[in-house]
């Protein structure tokens, strides 16, 4: 493996609890080097799944969080100046394509559409990346794969992927896992007992019922894990839940009161 991408290898196994057949599906997709989209609400385990799969497939993982100010050169690379003159620096996408890593673009819709089109030649059967400034054409390494993630829930209508981009990808839909699995995940990751984990999951499920009725998004698995870790650290459960689960997700007093009501129902006050 090239030294350039060795630091991106994931050494230890990340904890991931499969909630369906996504591992199997992704392996099949990787075998074909099919570009993939991960869809799902925030904090449901998309990024963790990606890390886990990178570890499982023993491929380096280059992650890039997208934002609105990102330009094509942030992805493919640019010339920079040094004492001798101009030097070309590969961007993360170029490194991944050149040396054979998995490139993971997080929250891809945050990037502007004219930026995302530069992945087009990489994601169809050509698998090439033209660097026009350098006058170079990179043929993607045989191990290279592009994966993007996004959360279809909260993006505005103006922020969406172009159809021409979407149709180059396969997609896996992620949801919050079922109650039993989620309890197990929370208990494992935060170190609290099953009983407390179960109550945390109960609160989160109640909050997810409020989605569209005052909340944009319910309490995620990640938030529960944080709350669990606080509880394990000796913070009273209701305080931990308020700190890590309810207060961050809303500023509406009435919703907050209802969420605190759920906490009270499980943990008292």
């Amino acid at each position, binding site marked *: 493996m090239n030294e350039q991408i060795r630091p991106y290898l994931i050494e230890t196994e990340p904890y991931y609890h499969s909630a369906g057949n996504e591992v199997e599906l992704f392996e099949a997709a990787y075998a074909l080097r099919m570009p993939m989209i991960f869809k799902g609400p925030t904090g449901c385990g998309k990024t963790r799944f990606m890390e886990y799969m990178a570890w499982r497939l023993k491929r380096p993982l280059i992650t890039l969080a997208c934002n609105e*100010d990102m*330009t094509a*050169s942030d992805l493919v690379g*640019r*010339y*920079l*100046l040094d004492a001798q*003159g*101009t030097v070309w620096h590969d961007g993360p996408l170029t490194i991944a394509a050149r040396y054979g890593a998995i490139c993971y673009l997080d929250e891809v819709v945050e990037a502007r559409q004219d930026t995302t089109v530069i992945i087009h030649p990489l994601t169809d059967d050509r698998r090439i990346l033209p660097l026009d400034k350098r006058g170079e054409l990179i043929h993607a390494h045989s191990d290279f794969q592009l994966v993007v993630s996004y959360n279809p829930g909260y993006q505005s209508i103006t922020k969406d992927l172009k159809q021409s981009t979407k149709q180059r990808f396969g997609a896996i839909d992620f949801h919050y896992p079922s109650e039993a699995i989620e309890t197990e995940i929370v208990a494992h990751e935060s170190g609290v007992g099953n009983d407390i984990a179960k*109550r945390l999951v*109960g609160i989160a499920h*109640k*909050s997810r*019922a*409020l989605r569209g*009725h*005052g909340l944009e998004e319910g309490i995620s698995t990640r938030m529960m894990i944080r709350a669990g870790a606080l509880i394990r650290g000796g913070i009273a459960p*209701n305080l931990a839940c308020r700190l890590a689960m309810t207060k961050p997700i809303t500023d509406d*007093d*009435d*919703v907050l*009161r*209802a*969420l605190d*009501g*759920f*906490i*009270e*129902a*499980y*943990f*008292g*006050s």
Partner: protein
Amino acid sequence: MDMTTLLIEPLATRLGALQKRDSAAHTRLVGTLPALTPRLGDDAALADLVALCDQTAAAVPGLASDLITHLEYLLATLDVAGLRRWVLTGMRLYPNHPALLARYFRLDDPAAAQSMHAEANGFRFGAAHSALQYYLAGFGLPDVVLKARQQHDFNALPVRTVISEGVLLFPEHYLAIEGAGNGDIYCAAAAHALAHLNYSRRHRAVNQRKPMLVAVLSLIEDARVERLMARKYPGLHTLWGRFHVASGEAGDLSFASLTARLARALHDPYYLDPNHWVNKGRELFQENADRLDDAAAFDEVGNILANDLGQMRVRFNPQQYRVEPAYRDDNTLLWEFEEDQQDTPPEEMLARKSAQVESDGSDTESGVTMHILAIEPDMARRWHYPEWDYRAEIERDKWVTVIDAPLVDSGAAAPDAAQKCSTARNIPFDTTTRLLDRSIRLRRQYEGDELDLNAAIESRISLRGRIAPDPRIFQRTGRRRPSYATLLLLDLSESTNDRIKGTYTTVLDVEKRAAAIVAESIDRGQDRIAIHGFASNGRSDVRYARIKDFDQPFGDRQRQQLAQQRGALSTRMGAALRHAGSCLATEQAEKKMIILVTDGEPSDIDVYDSRYLIEDARYAVGVLAAQGISTFCLTLDQRADAYVRAIFGAWNYLIVDDPTALPLQVARALAKVSAR
């Protein structure tokens, strides 16, 4: 100034009722009203206050004067609803002791001060409503309708929650003396209702069971479902526990006390009660505690306990019994009473039937009798506005009363008046006006305020690489179009019923069509529009109708509202403009405008000087302009030149020659105003 002329009608009737009942109290109240008015704010609160005094006079004859003595002091801390709770607290504390109650009213009783502070923040359904709705949605009841249950009779026992399919009626308020201050009592009530809805068998036939047995069985059922619920949600046990305050220390052997203590004993394993019956109840319940799902076993417990009560000669009066603690419901969900013996209050009947009844909040009470005046729903709100008198050159304060309520609701829709219009989409706003917005960054510009670093570096690189550099190395902030809040104000005076020459369409029809087109063609994502209408009947009665408000969609209901508007009365333009301005005041949009569609000059029945209302409207337009609200007038009156220019200024009006083209003209006017 003569007070009575300014009084609104319900207030006058209520004062009249009080006068009939207790003339001393009436005199005293009329004496204090001027001092109270600034504290209360609006007329509705004033009317509530008078009704409260009247109800007090009816419930405890002769004591209303004592209450009125300290009103000013009380209202410094409490609002009228709080005062009502405070009065109720006094009545609960001293149900049959007028002397003690008088002391309470005169603030000679320490309990009075305590209760005043406790009720200052109050436990009202209104404040808890939306949180409750969210709470219940979390528990899987997103569509349940929540309503307040009012206590009409002042002397009656406190009301309890009523549960039925699809509707929950919560008490309008809980009193601090019922323990409402111990925790979130509405939350506890909702959780208890959820327990019933999840675990209780509903609508069992009462058959031959005696009322006492029904009450005891309901109590056991309450405890059973709460335990089941607490098994899943352990925190609820603590929540409910805070409201169990009954205690057996006084040795009270009444049914109410015994059952309240049994409820507590069943809830709290550490509670000790001296009474054998209570302890027996706890033991019997505990024997079955490991099979909570077996409702029949608990019926048996209830049967034994009720039987014991009979043996103990404990008397039970269903009319005097209220379930304790206060958060519990009245248990009508559990039973199916036979029709003839049922004296369910009408609102409970409503709750039961409400699966079919659409709740539109318009349960006005007709035929209100004189002895107790029910508070009418606050549908018609009154606003006072100044008016400009050009002769005296003064602005007369609170001169005009605008009644913000639906106009005549005549039922049948006018045909085709507000027909759906699929044409003329996206016309209204001029898109050339732009506001600076720093969140928009334009990169790679030939000119700009700062360097675009990426572009600048690339340009240097090109220079070094001996390539012609891209000269676009600047960035600057972009602009966007401002958001608009538009209020389309329709003249609904009598003259709008005139037909347009050569057609069968009235002016009003054209106005409606124009309103519908504008409402539909507006960009909902960015701009907000409201359609209001007005007509006047003298200065004390300027009617103002909100056909579509800013927060409402232009849906079927609004279309229907629009179609139902009829032309009547006169055109007091200034008052309507001022009120429209106050409606716009709360809007957050960057540009606010009022588009007035009218067919004639301002006029009203109590004004004979035609210049008076024109000058007043001109003044109102000036005030609005100072508030940043643009006004524009579209008039169908061909001879309007003389006055519209005076009112709106040279550039802010348009005389529409062809009335049928009004819809298009309204759209043009919008574009014109927004372009400024």
